[in-house]
């Protein structure tokens, strides 16, 4: 029971955390593009777009941070046996993530949230670049940790404790790099779809005088989606070839060699991911080519507003393949998930599971309301409303 509850809780909290993460990771890169354009051309329209999408970024960033703290704590509260056995290897990427990435992004996000219109264009560009660097480094380190769970290299296992042999092997674990690139590109696609959907909403229902602006953001997002969506299958394919050698059981699940239960779920999730990935290339290619048509067609704009769930489904499906595909292992081939749990009274895990579900329900409503209400307000002129 303890085992099942701890798994459910981890799956639920990580999935919820991951509603916010890819959007912020990708969106900040799009904001950097706007800030570079603003810095170079001195064109105010890029500053307006950057400010507008920064508000959407910042709302989701805060939710991502606080739900991320939940993940760190759970390694101790719910996965103590795993943490103690793997601490020598697994802990250091988390330290590096906090020290190298979290400090950077958090410090500069504070400036961006409360003081961005008080600073020079140059300092604006530096600030968003530091946030973008921080989020990317954060992804690098957490994926290094996950990569070790998938493909444990650079360490030795004595049956009870894992001991670090070579940190550079842990960092240059090819599994982690395939996953980092694949995941980052997916996050960019997802953010591109969010920008495209918001731009569509603005073209349909927004203020007349800011429509030209949102035509620009629609163009940028369509290009961003197209470029990343083409790169995803290319990198994904070599990722899969690499997996063939190191995770035979996952491959057997994907190809359907083994079926039933979790195996079938993995196969279906893989199918969904690949199908959606293909659709993304088609949609973004069409939008880039027929941009003029899109900016006049209310039908297309309405459709685009409702495409947002698709990249979320694709990215969650991808992670299901990754994580369910390594079952029953917590460290592939070495330690099973059930061996990693903390021995705590079951009642306490019930307490945390129920309370966190209720709490996250409230958070989701708040995030949705905040994001939607900010989206609807549109561009706020300087010196106007706060």
């Amino acid at each position, binding site marked *: 029971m303890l085992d099942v509850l701890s798994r459910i809780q981890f799956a639920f909290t990580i999935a919820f955390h991951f509603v916010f993460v890819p959007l912020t990771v990708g969106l900040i890169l799009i904001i950097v593009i706007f800030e570079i354009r603003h810095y170079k051309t001195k064109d105010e329209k890029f500053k307006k777009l950057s400010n507008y999408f920064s508000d959407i970024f910042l709302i989701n960033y805060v939710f991502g941070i606080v739900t991320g*703290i939940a993940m760190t704590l759970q390694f101790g*509260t719910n996965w103590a046996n795993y943490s103690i056995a793997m601490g020598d290897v697994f802990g*250091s990427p988390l*330290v590096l993530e906090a020290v190298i990435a979290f400090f950077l992004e958090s*410090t500069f996000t*504070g400036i961006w949230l409360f003081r961005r219109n008080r600073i020079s264009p140059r300092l604006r560009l530096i600030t968003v670049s530091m946030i973008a660097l921080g989020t990317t480094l954060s992804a690098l380190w957490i994926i290094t940790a996950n990569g070790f769970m998938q493909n444990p290299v650079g360490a030795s296992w004595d049956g009870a404790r894992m001991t670090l042999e070579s940190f550079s092997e842990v960092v240059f674990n090819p599994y982690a790099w395939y996953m980092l690139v694949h995941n980052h590109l997916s996050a960019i696609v997802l953010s591109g779809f969010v920008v495209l959907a918001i731009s569509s909403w603005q073209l349909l229902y927004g203020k007349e005088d800011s429509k030209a602006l949102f035509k620009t953001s629609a163009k940028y997002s369509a290009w961003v989606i197209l470029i990343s969506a083409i790169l995803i299958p290319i990198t994904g394919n070599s990722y899969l070839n690499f997996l063939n050698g190191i995770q035979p059981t996952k491959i057997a699940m994907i190809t359907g060699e083994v079926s039933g239960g979790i195996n079938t779920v993995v196969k279906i999730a893989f199918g969904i991911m690949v199908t959606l990935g293909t659709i993304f290339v088609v949609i973004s290619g069409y939008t880039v080519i027929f941009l003029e048509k899109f900016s006049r067609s209310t039908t297309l704009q309405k459709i685009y507003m409702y495409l947002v769930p698709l990249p979320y489904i694709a990215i969650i499906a991808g992670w299901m393949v990754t994580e369910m595909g390594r079952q029953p292992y917590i460290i592939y081939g070495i330690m099973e998930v059930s061996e990693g749990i903390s021995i705590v009274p079951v009642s306490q895990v019930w307490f945390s599971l129920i309370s966190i579900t209720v709490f996250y329900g409230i958070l989701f409503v708040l995030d949705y309301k905040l994001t939607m209400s900010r989206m609807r307000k549109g561009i706020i002129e300087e010196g106007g409303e706060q």
Partner: protein
Amino acid sequence: MAQVTLANILYSVIAFSWIVYIVQELFVAGASALNIALSKDEAERKQIQVTTGLHFDGMEVWLIAALTITFGSFPLVFGTTLTYLYVPFFLLLYTIIARGISIEVLYKMDDPKWTKVMAITWMVSSVLLIFIIGLFLTNMFYGFPMDSTGLTGSFLSVFNVTGISGALLFVVMALLSGAGWISITTEGPLSEKAVLFVKKYGVIYAAPILILLVFMGFNNLDNSIFIGQLFSQSFLYFVLPIGTVTLALLAVYYGQKEDGKKLFIFVSLTALLFMLTGFVGIYPYMIPSNIAISDGITLFDAMVSQKTMSLIATVLAIFYPIIIGYQSWKYLQFRGKIRRNDEEAQ
């Protein structure tokens, strides 16, 4: 470097991270907790939001750093503590989430109904957050009921008199530090009200009394930190607890004189020395036992391999100075006073 030396260094860095976190958390949590009592309108609440919000993201990472460095260097301590204190740590998590979200929602939403609910959430979560942190730290210095079989009883053991006094001490220090911070960093009537408020309600007198209660609680144990390895080594270490009380009395003095800046400085120093007393006192234990001293877990029981520790120490040696550099730059860059209706146009 020898494994033992590295463990000592990392233990010091963890203590350092906790102290840097607490000194900043005190004014953020305290100013947040005072938001309803002090602000008579939304413009004043916005002043408090800007002056705390600007720094809260960056300072919260010090807590994450303290926890993850413990995980990376002393995983046994991390796993054992968080498993035993499962419920308190989840409650802490909820207060961290509620505080972060309410700052955000308040800043972005202008619906008066939401504003009211969120202002209350902001206040309550800030008080509970610093209470739980204080409860945890004081108990860490007080020791846990650990015998040769491990930790005994349940998380409820942290609700002992000493622990609760310590938790209240942190709440009081937060209110004082927050009031001082508001008076230093804001302009207008808000700035003047802040210190008057903590003086009027006698909050300024509570800190030295609570410190004495906590120290007496420590001293009542057979395994008191005051007879621990370092304190019994040299009498000079008693400068720390005596200094803590002295600084708290100086904070009372400047609170009386309504000097916000000095109040802030001396409360921060009080917190610093209080923490230092604790971390020096429990050494070499990271989970001290208040039943039988030798049953506690020392840093040397829990440390990871030399390779991993030297990796973490190297990373910290490079990045901590950089982090301290850019965070100090930020405090200096944005040191101007926050005026009424100063919130930025977007």
